[in-house]
C-alpha cells in the first residue's frame, strides 16, 4: 500500500485579489498565502510519507516574471528531495506562458513531462505507470489525452493532464476531452488540473480535479487544497481532500428582509459571519457580504453606503484581530414602498418614469457610457481583468446600476432637510 498527493493550479505568488486595505484589516494574514499553502503541501507529503507528488499544471501565473517565485518553488521541492519524495509535473496554460518555467532548473527529484508527446514513467518498485504531456503553448485546443498510450498491464496507471475536460464554467477551454475518452485508456486514476473548483468527476476510473491550492479571490470560495490518494493492490483504496489553504474566501448572503433599522441588519450580518468564521477552522476569512431583501432600512443604508461598509468592518473586527477581512459589502436591498410613486403625476413620479425608460433604451445608455470614456482611459486595464470591477463604458453594466442610482436619488431627494 502507498499514498500519493495530487495537486494542481498552485499559481505561486499570485496575489489575492479584491482586498482593499483598511484600518484593522488582517494585512499580515494574507501575505504570501500561496507560498504558505505550498509549504503546507510539502509538509503533508512528508507527514503522510507520500510515495510521490503530482502537480497537474499551472504552477505560476503566466504573466508573473519574478524568478524568486521559481527559486522558492525549487527550495520547496528540495525539501521533498530530502525526504526522498519524487515529484512529477507538467506545464499548464499558465506555465507555458511563464518565463520562469522556461529558465528554472528544478532539483533532481522533479520530473517534468515532455510537451511534445505523451511520456510514460514506470516506477517498478511501486508498480506504477505515470503518463503525461504538458502544454507547449499557452493555448492548446487539441485533445492531448487522445494520444496517451493505453494502460501498461499489471501496473497502477495514472494519467496527468491539464484540461478543461468537456468545459467548465469560468475556465477557458484547453485540451478538451471527454470522460469516455479518458476512461477508454484503462487508467486507474486521472490527475487533472486547470479547473479551480475541487471536483471528483468520476469514480470509475477516478477522474479528479483537486482545485486550486489556495483561493485567490471572491469567486474561489470555500476550502482549498490537494487530494491524497491511497493505493492498494494497484487499485485506488481511498481518495481524501485535504485542506491546505491558509486564507479562506466566502460570500456571505444576509437577508435583511423586514429589518427595521441598521442595528438589526448589523446583527444579522454578525450572525452570518459567525457561521462562516466557525466553518473556516481558524483560518483568516475574506468575506463578501451581500445584503438582500426588502427592508425599511433600505433608504438609510443607501444614503450612507460608505458608513455602512465601516459598520460591517467594525462587526468583522469584533471576531478578533486577523479573523475576518471584509472584501466588499454589496447592497441588494429593496425599499418596500416605491411601487406607487411611479404613478404620481409629480416631479418624483416623472423622475422614476424617466429612469425606467432609460433602462429600456440602449441608445441612451450607450450615450451615457460614452461619457465615462475619460475615466476609462485613465484606469489601468488590470482593473477589468477579472470582470469584477464595473466598466462604466459598458452600457450593459450601466443598466445594472440604474436601480441603485434610482434608490440613491430617492434617498437623497426625500431625506429630511438639515435642521428640520
Amino acid at each position, binding site marked *: 500500500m502507498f499514498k500519493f498527493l495530487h495537486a494542481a493550479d498552485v499559481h505561486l505568488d499570485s496575489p489575492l485579489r479584491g482586498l482593499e486595505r483598511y484600518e484593522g484589516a488582517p494585512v499580515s494574514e494574507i501575505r504570501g498565502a500561496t507560498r504558505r499553502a505550498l509549504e503546507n503541501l510539502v509538509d503533508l507529503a512528508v507527514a503522510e510519507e507520500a510515495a510521490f507528488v503530482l502537480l497537474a499544471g499551472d504552477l505560476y501565473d503566466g504573466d508573473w516574471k519574478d524568478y524568486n517565485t521559481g527559486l522558492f518553488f525549487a527550495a520547496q521541492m528540495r525539501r521533498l528531495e530530502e525526504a526522498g519524495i519524487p515529484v512529477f509535473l507538467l506545464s499548464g496554460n499558465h506555465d507555458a506562458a511563464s518565463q520562469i518555467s522556461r529558465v528554472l532548473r528544478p532539483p533532481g527529484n522533479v520530473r517534468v513531462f515532455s510537451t511534445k508527446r505523451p511520456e510514460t514513467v514506470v516506477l517498478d518498485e511501486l508498480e506504477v505507470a505515470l503518463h503525461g504531456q504538458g502544454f507547449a503553448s499557452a493555448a492548446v485546443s487539441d485533445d492531448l489525452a487522445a494520444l496517451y498510450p493505453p494502460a501498461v498491464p499489471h501496473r497502477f496507471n495514472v494519467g496527468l493532464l491539464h484540461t478543461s475536460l468537456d468545459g467548465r464554467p469560468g475556465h477557458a477551454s484547453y485540451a478538451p476531452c471527454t470522460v469516455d475518452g479518458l476512461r477508454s485508456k484503462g487508467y486507474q486514476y486521472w490527475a487533472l488540473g486547470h479547473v479551480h473548483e475541487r471536483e471528483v468527476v468520476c469514480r470509475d476510473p477516478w477522474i479528479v480535479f483537486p482545485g486550486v491550492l489556495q483561493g485567490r479571490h471572491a469567486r474561489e470560495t470555500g476550502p482549498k487544497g490537494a487530494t491524497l490518494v491511497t493505493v492498494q493492490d494497484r487499485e485506488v483504496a481511498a481518495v481524501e481532500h485535504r485542506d491546505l489553504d491558509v486564507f479562506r474566501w466566502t460570500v456571505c448572503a444576509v437577508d435583511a428582509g423586514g429589518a427595521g433599522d441598521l442595528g438589526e441588519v448589523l446583527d444579522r450580518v454578525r450572525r452570518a459571519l459567525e457561521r462562516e468564521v466557525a466553518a473556516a477552522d481558524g483560518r483568516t476569512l475574506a468575506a463578501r457580504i451581500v445584503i438582500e431583501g426588502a427592508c425599511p432600512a433600505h433608504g438609510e443604508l443607501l444614503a450612507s453606503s460608505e458608513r455602512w461598509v465601516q459598520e460591517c468592518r467594525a462587526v468583522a473586527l469584533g471576531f478578533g484581530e486577523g479573523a475576518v477581512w471584509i472584501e466588499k459589502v454589496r447592497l441588494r436591498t429593496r425599499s418596500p414602498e416605491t411601487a406607487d410613486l411611479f404613478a404620481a403625476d409629480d416631479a418624483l413620479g416623472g423622475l422614476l418614469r424617466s429612469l425606467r425608460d432609460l433602462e429600456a433604451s440602449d441608445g441612451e445608455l450607450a450615450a451615457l457610457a460614452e461619457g465615462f470614456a475619460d475615466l476609462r482611459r*485613465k484606469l489601468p486595464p488590470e482593473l477589468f481583468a477579472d470582470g469584477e470591477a464595473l466598466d462604466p463604458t459598458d452600457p450593459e453594466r450601466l443598466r445594472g446600476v440604474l436601480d441603485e*442610482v434610482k434608490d440613491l436619488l430617492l434617498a437623497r431627494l426625500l431625506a429630511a432637510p438639515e435642521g428640520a
Partner: protein
Amino acid sequence: MRLLELDLRAFGPFTGRRLDLSGGEHGLHVVFGPNEAGKSSALRALKVLLFGFPLRSPDDFLHSYDQLRVGGRLLLGDGSEVSFLRRKGSKSTVLSPEDESPLDEGFLDRCLQGMEERHFSTLFGIDHEALVAGGRELLEQHGEVGQALFAAGLGSRSLRKVLESLDGEAEGLFLPRGAKPLINQAVSEYREARRELSDASLSGREFEGLRKELERMREQADALGGEIAGLERERNRLQRLRRALPVLAERRRLVERLGELEGVVVLPPDFPDRRRKVQEELRKAREDRDRAGVELAGLQREVATLTVAAPVLAQAETIERLHQGVGQFTKGLNDRSRLLGESGELRAQASELLEETRPGLTLEEAEALRPALDRWVRIQELGNQRQALVSGLEQARRLADEAESALAAAQEARDGYPKPRDPGPLRRSVEAARRAGSLDDLRAEAAASLRTDSEQLRIDLGRLGLWSGAPEELETLPVPPGETIERFGRDLATLAERRRSLEDRRRTTLADLGEADRRLEELRRAGRVPAESDLLETRERRDHGWRLLRRHWIEGKDVEKEARRFDPHRPLPEAYERTVEEADDLADRLRREADRVQLQAQLSARRDQLAGELAGLDSEIAAVEEETSRIESAWKDLWRPCGIEPLPPREMHPAWTSRHEKLRTRAEAVRGLRRRLEGLEETARQHRTALAAALEHLGEAVPRVEGVEPVLFRSEEVVRRLEDEERQRLRLDGDVREAEARLSKARRDEDAALAALEAWSRSWAEAIRGLGLGGDALPSEVNQLVESLRRISESRRDAEKIDRRIAGLNRDLESFETAVRALAADLAPERADQPADQTAVHLHALLQDARRQADRREGLERRTKKLEQEVRDAESTRRAMEERLAQLRREAGCADDAGLEEAERRSAEVRELRRDLDRCERQLLQEGEGAALDDLEREAEGVDADALPGGIDQLGREIEERARRLGDLREELGRRDRELEHRTGGDAAARVAERAEEVLARLRDGVDRYVRLHLAGKLLRREIERYRAENQAPLLRRAGDLFATLTLGSFAGLQTDFNDRDEPVLVGVRAGGPKVRVEGMSDGARDQLYLALRLATLEKYLAHAEPLPFIVDDILINFDDARTRAALKVLADLAKKTQVILFTHHERLKEMAGAMRNGAGVFVRELG
C-alpha cells in the same frame, strides 16, 4: 379625501379634544392656537392619524405610550365616510373608534395612494421655514427655471444641495485632470506599484547572469590560489638550499679524511675487550700453577707421621654390643628382688578370703566348686528375667477386666436403638422432580412473560394504526406484498412529480400573467391608454350624432327623444361638438402615444397567450388528479380484504408493513409462550402427586401448600433424616463387634504370662544346682557366693605367673657375665676380675680412640689428590690463552702484542668519520625535503650563497601581494553569494503585487461609487430639464397669476429669460414691463414667488389625482395685512380643489380669516 374631524382623544396636552374640519366644499380651515395651546401637537396629531406614530414620540408627557390615541373621520373619494382611531404600536394600529377592535388599513393606503409620510410632507405640507428656505433656494439657484420648478414640484427645499453633494462627492472620487481625488490617486499609486514590481522582480536571465558571474569569479580565485602555491614552492626551495650549504661543506671534509685513512683494518667494535680479556686470563693461569705446587709438598710430609691400633678395631663390633647390654644387666638385678616380694603377698590374700566365705574349706577344695561357676552367665540371665515375668502377668489380668466391662456397655447402646425404614422410593421421586428443574420458577416466569408480552402486543397492536383486532387475527391478515405496494408508491410518486412540475409551470405562468397584468395596470394608471376600438366607438358615436343633427337640421325632423338618449344633459349640437372633440382627441392620442398603445397591445396579447397556457395547464392538472384518484381507489381496494383504510403507499411500505410484520412475529412468539406454560403446569402436577404418595407411604405428613417446591423440600428433608438413622445404626453394631474382639485377646495374653513364669522357675532350680544352695534360693544370694569364689581363684593364678618371670631373669644375667670375661682376657687382662659392667665400659673407651686416628689419615690422602689435579688444569689454560693471543695478532695484522693497541686506535678513528658522514647525509636528506643528494649537490654548485636571502624576501613579497588580492576576491565573492542567496526565493515582488491588488480593490470600489454618483447627478439634471420643458409654460402662467395676486399686483406675472450662460432663468415682470431677476427681489417677494410656484405645482398635481388636505403651518407671519389677506384668498381658492388646513398662532390672522365670508369656505377653529 378630506378630513372631517380630528379627535385628539389622548395626545400631547390634549385629552378628549375634538377638532371639527367638516365645513365647506373642501374648506380652508384656520386652526388657531395661541402659544402653548398645542398648535404643534395638533399638527403632529394630524400626521400621526394618517401615517401612524413614529418609533419615539414626544407627545407622551401626559399620556403614556400605550394610552396615546388620535382619531379622525375621513370623507373618502368615493363619498363614503370612515372613522378610526390610531394607537402607537408596530402593527394593527388602526382601530375602530367604538370598541378599539383592529380595522383593515386598506382604505388609508388607497386614499393616500401609497404615499409615505416623507413624500406627503414635502408635497402637501408647507411651513414658515420651508417657505423661507424655498425663497433662499430660489436666490441661490439664481432663479434657474428647471431647478425652481422641479424643487417646487418635489416640495424639496434642498434640490441644489442634493446636486451639489452628488457633484462634490463624485469630484472627491475622480477628476479628469486631477491628482488628489481618490481614483486619480489610486491610479498613480497603482502605476507606482507596477513600477516597483518590475524593479523587485528578478528575471530568470538576470539571475542566471548573476550566477555565471559568480562562477567566473570563483574560477579567478582558484587560478590566483594556484599561482600563490607555485611561488611558495620556489621560496621553499631557496630556503632549503640556504639551510643545506654548511652541511654540504662538512661532508666534503669528512670524505677527504676518509680517503687518507684508506687501507686501515677496521676491527670489530669488541676487539679491544677481547684482547684485554685474553691477556688477563693468561696471567691468572700462570699464578694458579705456582701456588698449588707449594701446598702439595707440605701435605706429603704430614701423612708420613701418623700410627693406628689395629686389634681393637678388629673386635669393634663385639665391644659395641656388650657396651649396649650394660644397662639391661643392671635393671635385671633390681627386678628379681621386687618380684620375689609380690608372689608371697598374693598367696596370703587368697587364704584370707576363703576363710571368710566358707570357713574350713581349703584352697584346693574350693577349686572343686569351679564347674558351677561355668554356668554363671546363665544364672545371671535367669535372675534378671524373673521380675519382668511377674509384672507381665499382672498387666494381662487388668486388661482382661477392662475389655469385659466395655463390651457390656456397647451391647447396651445397640439394643436401645429404633427399627430401620427404607428411604429408596421417596429418594427416586425427589430426584425425578429435581431433574425437571425448578418448575415453580419456570412456570411463574413463563406466566409473567406471557402476561407482559400479550399486554405489550395488545398495546402495540393498538398503536399499529389503521387496523384493530385480536392478535390471533393479525397472523392471518392478508396484507398485500411489498412489491405491489412499491408499485403503487412509484405510480403515485410519478403522478405527484408530474403534478408538481405542472404546478410549477402553472405558478410561473401565473406570475408571468401577474407581471403582464401589473404592467398593463401601470400603463392604465399612467393614464388610460387609448385603443383603436375606443376610437371606432367614439367615431361611431360622433357619426350617430351627426346623423341626428343632419336629420334635425337638414331634414327638419324631430329628434328630441333620440337626442336625449344621445346625451341627456346637453343640447344636441353641443353634445355633437363634444363627440367630435373626443374623437379628435382620441385620434391625436393614438398617434401621440403610439408606443404605449403598442405596448398595451403586446401586453394584452401576451396576457391572452398566458391565460391560454394557464387553462391548458389547469386541464392537464385535472387529468393528473383524475389519474391519481383512480390509482388511489385501486390502492384502497387492495387493502379492503384487510379491512384497512390505507395511508399513501410510501407510508404503508416499508414503515407500516414492517411494523405489521414485526407484530405478527411477536404474536407467534406469544402463542409459543402459552404452549410452554401449559406443558410446565402438567409436569409440575405429576411430580407433586408422586412425591405425596411416597411421603404417605413412609407415614410422613404431606404439606398442604400449593406447588411442587414445598412438597419437594419436605421430601428431601425426610430422605436426609432416614439416611442419618441408618448410618448411626451401622456405627453401633461395629462398636459391639470391636469390644468382643478386644476381650478375647486379653484372655489369651493372661494365660501366656502365667505359663512363662512357671517355665522360668524350672530353669532357675536347674542352674543353681551344685552350689550347695536350695532350689528356691533367691538370685541375690547366689550372686554373692559366686563373686567370692571367683576372686580367690584369680589371686592364686597371679602368684604362679610371677614365679615364672623370676626364673627367666636369672638365665639372662649369667650369660652377660661370661661374655665380658672372655673378651677382657684378650684385650685387657689387667681388668679381668673387675665387675662385668665396668669392664665392658673400659673396652668401649679403647675402641673410640683407635677410630679417631684412622679418620685423620684418610682426610690427608684426599687433599693431596685434589692439589695434583689443580696443577694440571692451570697448565692447560695457560697454553690455550697463548694460542688465542696469537690469533688476535694475526687479525690485527700485528707482529707483536705492543702493535695491537695502535691498530685499535686507527680503526676507531675511521669508524668515527664514517658516523659523522652518515649524520651529515641524513641531515641533508632532511633539509632537502626528499631531494636526492646528487641533485642537492648540483643545485648548490650554481648558487650564490650571498644572493639567497634577497631572493627569498622577494618571493615573500610577491606571495603576500597575491594573497591580498585573493582575499579581496574572496570577500567580494562571499558578498555576492550572500546577495544572490538573499535575493533568491524572496517574496518582495509578491508583496508588491499584493499591495498593487489592494490598490486595485480600492480603485474598483472608487469607480463603483463614482459611476453611481456621477450618473445620479447627470440623470437628475436631465430630469430637471425634462420637467422644465414639459411643464414650464402652464406652470409659469399659473404661478405668475398667483404671484401677481400675492404681491398685490406689484408684479404682473412671471417669464423666462436667459442668463449670461444662456440658461433659462425666472424673472418677475413688473406691471409696466420691466423684468426683475430673483436676485433683485426682496426676501418677502421671493418667499411669495416660492409659494406661488408651490401652489401652482399643487394645482397641477390635483388636476390628475385625488385631493389630499394641504397642511399649512404659519407661513404668513412675515406678510403684511394686505398681503396676508391676498394669501388667504389664494388659499381659499385652493380650498375649492382640496381641503386646506392652516395652523396659526396669530390673533390677527384669525381675525382676518373670521372677517372673510363663510361663503368663501373659510372656517376658524380654536384650539385653546
